[in-house]
């Protein structure tokens, strides 16, 4: 079913921010459906402004649409006002390009960026007139895929998703679409009848899934059986189809420098969260912070060369007209030739009013010179992430920065004229004690004092502002802390209160995260497939946009869990034994379980592990098991200002 321009107009008149649903943006691609073999919708389970800021979407959209036989269109979670209109008028959720119902596509692929978007995923299937459960789908329904970091513990979504893709989509998606294409009904076999919503898309759905399961990196959850012991823990996870591998291994792009990167990305008509050029300078990070999932599941570091990045920037500016280039990665200061790249870009573009921005700088690689060059005139604020208040706890989490790193960076920034600094911390970390909270308060106050000093000497003109943002630790799959339980909400709240008291200072703004949200995030992050029924219940009770304060309804989640007889605390709070079978044990990120266990032990011993780019191989297993190596450009690894010994 296709939504006409007239219907669209009626819908647009009755919702807020109608620009979310119009499509037709610069560089969006509308293909002729009749000439295409496999049509895929990229489904982002959050609102347009968030989804359009996602680099993965830009990459896969460009990649798939390059191929004559395939097309990709976009669909985002409708805001509740639009959902109400769609349901009231009985219109299906539609793609932005051709305005077709989701169920018209052969493939609908979701990206799982955040646990709290899962109810939106179910809602989008339902609004797209696709049966929400995998086993209810017939040959007339699309194949429903999901990928992204959430696919590393996909079990809570096992009932809803036909197949998950583990790892980097640009490496595997075309293979998936090829296989789907072989299973699609040919138009000439339909006796000249035009396809309708009940026309079979595939010859046989089960055969399709069997072939998909043989593609490395593809996980078909219905081909695995999970059995549970009497105490609720998992006994074993076994494949029940002969074609299903014992372990599904993550797919990785070996040579990022030569990999596809879209130089003609869609330019949204309305302002989105990251409304700028996103230039991906490298992927992966081996710093090895023990709470960080991205630091494990995107290994190893693969850099792009300055030449490639330079060329891509030129084309990106030509094709988008943006006035800002953001150098993105997990830790941009770690890029081998950061100085060279930044200078090159500034030289070429500064005069034309095009700015360069560096998000995610580490304190230890922070160079005031660099930051100053980049921010000429507009000092928008700097963000540092010490994560924990004492050296002891920073060693436990393996955050390789010191107090001195922080003070040096903050002093330099204030002296250079910055007036506002943001500090990120986490509480509820394993082994945390009251001294660690005192340490946090001390660090924040000391940074504020450094600001005051700079202000007295006349180096800062504006009021000093230190923003302290404190999040709650959430254990994540495939990290050394996956076995660690989350602290109960009551304990976290006591800590939050303690910090609020301790950070009472007119120079300091203190932000904290809702413990309820962190709790449910932990439940899903460590959940098994029994959670599927609770997810469905929560959605039926009206849960949507759970990551958005104004829509989050924790009491409905609680009811949903009770009704299906599950204890959320079992998932969030439990200290899991190292010998237990984890819900994601059959999924292999390439990082060895032994390494994660050794890191867990090291954390409790307070021993740090160096980045392998500095201290030699740490035997995490990624390079050997995936047959890869680090890809680094430029000889001198680290910034020019900080001696090597200070960096860990």
């Amino acid at each position: 079913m296709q939504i006409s321009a007239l219907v669209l107009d009626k819908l647009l008149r009755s919702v807020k921010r109608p620009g979310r649903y119009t499509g037709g943006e610069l560089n969006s691609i509308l293909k002729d459906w009749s000439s295409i073999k496999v049509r895929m919708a990229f489904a982002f389970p959050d609102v347009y402004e968030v989804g359009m800021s996602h680099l993965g979407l830009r990459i896969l959209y460009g990649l798939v649409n390059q191929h004559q036989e395939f097309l990709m269109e976009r669909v985002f979670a409708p805001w509740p006002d639009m959902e109400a209109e769609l349901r009231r008028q009985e219109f299906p959720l539609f793609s932005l390009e051709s305005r077709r119902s989701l169920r018209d596509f052969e493939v609908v692929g979701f990206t799982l960026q955040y646990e709290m978007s899962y109810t939106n995923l179910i809602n989008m299937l339902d609004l797209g007139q696709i049966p929400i459960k995998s086993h209810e789908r017939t040959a007339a329904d699309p194949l429903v895929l999901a990928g992204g970091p959430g696919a590393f513990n996909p079990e809570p979504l096992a009932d809803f998703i036909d197949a998950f893709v583990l790892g980097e989509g640009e490496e595997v998606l075309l293979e998936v679409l090829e296989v789907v294409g072989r299973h699609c009904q040919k138009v000439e076999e339909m006796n000249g009848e035009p396809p309708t919503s009940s026309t079979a898309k595939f010859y046989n759905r089960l055969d399709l899934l069997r072939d998909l399961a043989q593609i490395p990196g593809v996980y078909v959850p219905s081909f695995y059986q999970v059995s549970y012991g009497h105490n609720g823990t998992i006994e074993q996870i076994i494949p029940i189809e002969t074609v299903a591998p014992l372990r599904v291994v993550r797919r990785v792009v070996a040579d990022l420098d030569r990999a596809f990167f879209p130089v003609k990305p869609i330019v949204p008509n309305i302002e989105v969260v990251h409304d700028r050029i996103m230039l991906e300078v490298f992927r992966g990070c081996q710093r090895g912070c023990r709470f960080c999932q991205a630091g494990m599941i995107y290994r190893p570091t693969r850099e792009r060369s300055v030449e490639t990045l330079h060329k891509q920037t030129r084309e990106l500016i030509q094709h988008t007209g943006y006035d800002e280039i953001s150098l993105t990665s997990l830790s941009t200061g770690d890029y081998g030739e950061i100085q060279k790249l930044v200078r090159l870009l500034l030289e070429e573009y500064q005069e034309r009013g095009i700015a360069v921005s560096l998000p995610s700088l580490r304190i230890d690689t922070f160079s005031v010179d660099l930051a100053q060059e980049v921010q000429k005139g507009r000092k928008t604020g700097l963000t540092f992430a010490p994560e924990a208040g004492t050296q002891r706890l920073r060693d436990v989490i393996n955050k390789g920065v010191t107090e001195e790193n922080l003070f040096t960076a903050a002093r330099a920034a204030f002296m250079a004229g910055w007036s506002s600094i943001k500090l990120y911390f986490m509480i509820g970390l394993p082994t945390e004690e009251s001294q660690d909270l005192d340490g946090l308060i001390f660090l924040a106050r000391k940074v504020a004092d450094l600001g005051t000093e700079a202000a007295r000497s006349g180096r800062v003109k504006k009021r000093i502002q230190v923003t302290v943002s404190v999040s709650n630790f959430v254990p994540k799959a495939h990290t050394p802390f996956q076995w660690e339980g989350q602290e109960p909400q009551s304990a976290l709240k006591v800590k939050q209160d303690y910090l609020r008291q301790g950070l009472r200072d007119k120079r300091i703004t203190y932000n904290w995260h809702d413990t309820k949200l962190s709790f449910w995030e932990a439940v899903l992050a460590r959940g098994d497939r029994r959670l599927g029924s609770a997810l469905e219940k929560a959605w039926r009770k009206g849960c949507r946009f759970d990551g958005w304060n104004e829509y989050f309804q924790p009491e409905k989640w609680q009811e949903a869990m009770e009704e299906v007889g599950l204890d959320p605390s079992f998932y969030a709070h439990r200290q899991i034994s190292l010998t237990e079978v984890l819900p994601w044990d059959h999924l292999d990120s390439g990082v060895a379980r032994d390494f994660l266990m050794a890191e867990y032990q090291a954390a409790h011993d307070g021993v740090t592990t160096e980045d392998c780019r500095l201290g030699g191989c740490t035997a995490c297993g990624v390079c050997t098991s995936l047959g890869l190596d680090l890809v680094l450009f430029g000889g001198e690894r680290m910034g020019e200002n900080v001696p090597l010994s200070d960096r860990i």
Partner: protein
Amino acid sequence: MCRFRIEYSKEGAIAYISHLDLSRMFERAARRAELPVALTQGYHPHYKMSFGSVLPVGIEGDQEYLDLELNRPYPAHKVQEALEKEMPEGLRIHRVKEIPLVAPALMSLINAASYAVRTRVEPAAAIHTSADFNQRIERALSRETWPVMRIRKKGNQEIDARSGLISINLEWRNGLVEGEIWLRISSNLAVRPIEILEALEVFGGINWLYEDTYLRRTGLFVLREGNFLSPMEVITR
């Protein structure tokens, strides 16, 4: 330095883009076209670009205007070609004309707008003849003021919609109403066409079906001695 006046139209779904987003869209188009647009001074330099009159979200515009300043001499037809190539779906460049740097801003020049209206009257209003409809319009017009409430985030404001009305010409046919509304634009008050319809409801007893109401801005003008002139023709005061 040189300055250009540009006439463009905004049609279709792009009408749902806000004024701020539209202005960013023009900036990006100019950057893609590699036009040497002049930058303002200061910490946050931005393009020297100024619009005629803000078009409300959801309303199409047939003849809208913007002025653009470039760093160096450039032929007007090249500016036109460059921009035309870079316009997203729904935006079209009609004319580009070089104007003196000292010419007054569009904002201070434009003082009138015309709107095309297509709407329906609610059956409950019980209007059965065009004579009845016209009478109700006359009844509303016979009042000297039309106080209506403008709903705003920072406190509502009462405005006199009548003072912004130049003329109105609506025709009723079996419940369907089509026609034109001409409005004054001044720095202290720019009445919206929807506020005119509201006033006709309150003071003429014509209940509209707002969800079936379509408005299009057909033109922006310099009203001078009773003549409606185009800002492309009237450059100076």
